[in-house]
């Protein structure tokens, strides 16, 4: 198992680093090649030539693209990402502060959705011919048709406005007041995880139903398992394996969803910053934010790769033998 971890982890890590660099180049180019000159974008078409020149000086936009790129990446490693052009915040610090709520939101949603999806998906699969199984699947299908922003608003209406149980907006750092932080995260996490859970559930269901047709399940039954115990004891792990592949896709959806959810619930996270930066045309901030989001996505992918190897022993030995 050690050899496997060594090989797979380091290989995945290398891949992740390569992807991060490739992604950074794409982000960098995308912001410069599309839509015209950055300075004009940031200040608007009515900007005076003097202000444009000032901006360019301040942000080093006169340098060659290569210089700008290297300077940016160098800054990333140093933790210096520059300042917003409105001068209202230091990009690096701002991002760092906002990481906490976003990470709690996204990781929290991911961690909640997986066990729920497993339980519900298995239940639905075991009962796939009966009404209770089918209705669960229908529910999941409706669930993934609901846009997250709408769900968020509905939750606000029901739980914040009507029932007054939970706050509609606002967030306080865990280090200041964990209880309030928790309260303010309940609705956002529930909103975000619902969509993901619906997708996962359907996937678990399909995967489990496939597994139920496999020979080893027949053996399990022949040994005296009921369908239910066979599904849980034997099927679960095997059906979880293909889930890792879909999990990879969902992570992107999670990050995208966090933009919306943070916006509706007023959570001062990265997603919110991204939105405001886009609206105010803070290209420099957007650049670094996009990279950060990319890194988070890649990190989660790495975790899932590891999980995959952990779940499927056949992979371990293939990798180890290489």
């Amino acid at each position, binding site marked *: 198992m050690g050899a496997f971890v060594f090989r797979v982890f380091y290989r995945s890590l290398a891949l992740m680093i390569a992807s991060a660099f490739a992604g950074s180049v794409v982000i960098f180019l995308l912001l410069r090649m599309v839509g015209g000159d950055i300075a004009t974008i940031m200040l608007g078409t009515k900007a005076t030539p003097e202000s444009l020149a000032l901006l360019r000086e301040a942000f080093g936009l006169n340098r060659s693209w290569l210089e700008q790129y290297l300077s940016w990446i160098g800054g990333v490693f140093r933790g210096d990402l520059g300042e917003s052009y409105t001068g209202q915040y230091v990009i690096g610090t701002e991002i760092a502060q906002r990481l906490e709520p976003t990470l709690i939101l996204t990781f929290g949603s991911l961690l909640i959705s997986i066990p729920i999806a497993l339980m519900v998906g298995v239940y639905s699969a075991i009962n796939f011919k009966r009404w209770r199984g089918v209705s669960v699947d229908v529910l999941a*299908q409706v669930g993934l048709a609901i846009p*997250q*922003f709408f769900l968020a608003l509905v939750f606000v209406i029901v739980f914040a*406005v009507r029932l007054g149980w939970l706050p509609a907006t606002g967030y306080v750092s865990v280090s200041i007041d964990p209880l309030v932080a928790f309260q303010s995260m309940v609705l956002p996490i529930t909103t975000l995880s619902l969509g993901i859970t619906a997708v996962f559930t359907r996937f678990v269901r399909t995967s489990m*139903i496939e597994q139920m047709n496999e020979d080893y399940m027949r053996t399990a039954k022949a040994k005296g398992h009921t369908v239910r115990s066979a599904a849980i004891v034997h099927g679960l792990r095997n059906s979880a394996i293909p889930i890792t592949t879909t999990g990879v896709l969902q992570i992107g959806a999670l990050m995208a969803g966090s*933009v919306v959810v943070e916006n509706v619930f007023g959570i001062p996270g990265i997603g919110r910053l991204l939105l405001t930066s*886009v609206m105010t045309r803070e290209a420099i901030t957007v650049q670094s934010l996009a990279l950060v*989001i990319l890194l988070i996505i890649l990190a989660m992918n790495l975790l899932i790769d590891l999980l995959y190897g952990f779940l499927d022993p056949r992979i371990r030995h293939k990798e180890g033998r290489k």
Partner: protein
Amino acid sequence: MKKSIRNFRTQPAIKSPQLIVGIILTGLVLAITLVSFFWTPWDPIAIDVEKRLLTPSFSHWFGTDRLGRDLLSQIMVGSQNTLYVTLVSTLIGVVLGTSLGLAAAGSGPRWGGILTRISDIGIAIPSILIALVLATTLGPGRLSVIIAISFWFVPVTARVVVGPARQILSLDFVEAAMTHGRTRMYIVFRQVLPNIAPIVIVQTSMMFAAGILIEASLSFLGVGAQPPTTSWGKILMDSQPLVQEAPYYTLLPGSFVVITVLAFNLLGDGLAVLLDPQQSQKGVA
């Protein structure tokens, strides 16, 4: 040589409630959109401050918005935007994606694998983030949205196409056809295309549903269609501050979006059962 590899053994449609409901609902939505070009219950842009925020009634089925405009009419017109954006993106995505997938499949096993890998990366990047980055430079608006959604649709389609296309191309009769002097292109069109058509159709329907969701989300964030173009997302964005006073303002349009997305998803599921029974037998109710 008219050989059809896939056995289009169509299941009786009755076995698939999804298909029926899907067709009905999508038909309804499309009908509403079409009608909206010619007629809406009220003039969607007619502002009448006296009538602002009326709850649903007989004359205003969905009530009125914060400027007194009839909500139902707004939604009807908004569907034009949604369908336009999604349709264009889907077309681009499917055409490009299928072409890429076929090209890769026809160029040998290595290219197929490379395309799949690249597609995997492309699929993992959410459209919303791309749209946001684009909106920074291009500005918000339908162009950014279309580019962003297409950008995602292309690898999704390509990935779905590459596998089966490769499978079909590796069959013996294809080699036989080639020795008879048929060009690759010919084979691709006559043989491969008809056989992957069902998969692509099902995938298109699903993507369409996803596209609607993405467009609505982007419009909600303010990055999609800009006023004066009406969009569902914008309606919901306007409703947000009024969530306490006028919950119907959020609930009704939102439910409409949900039903539309559901409609296309069900259609896709139903088509899957109809056209691709082997795939769909894996537990579709």
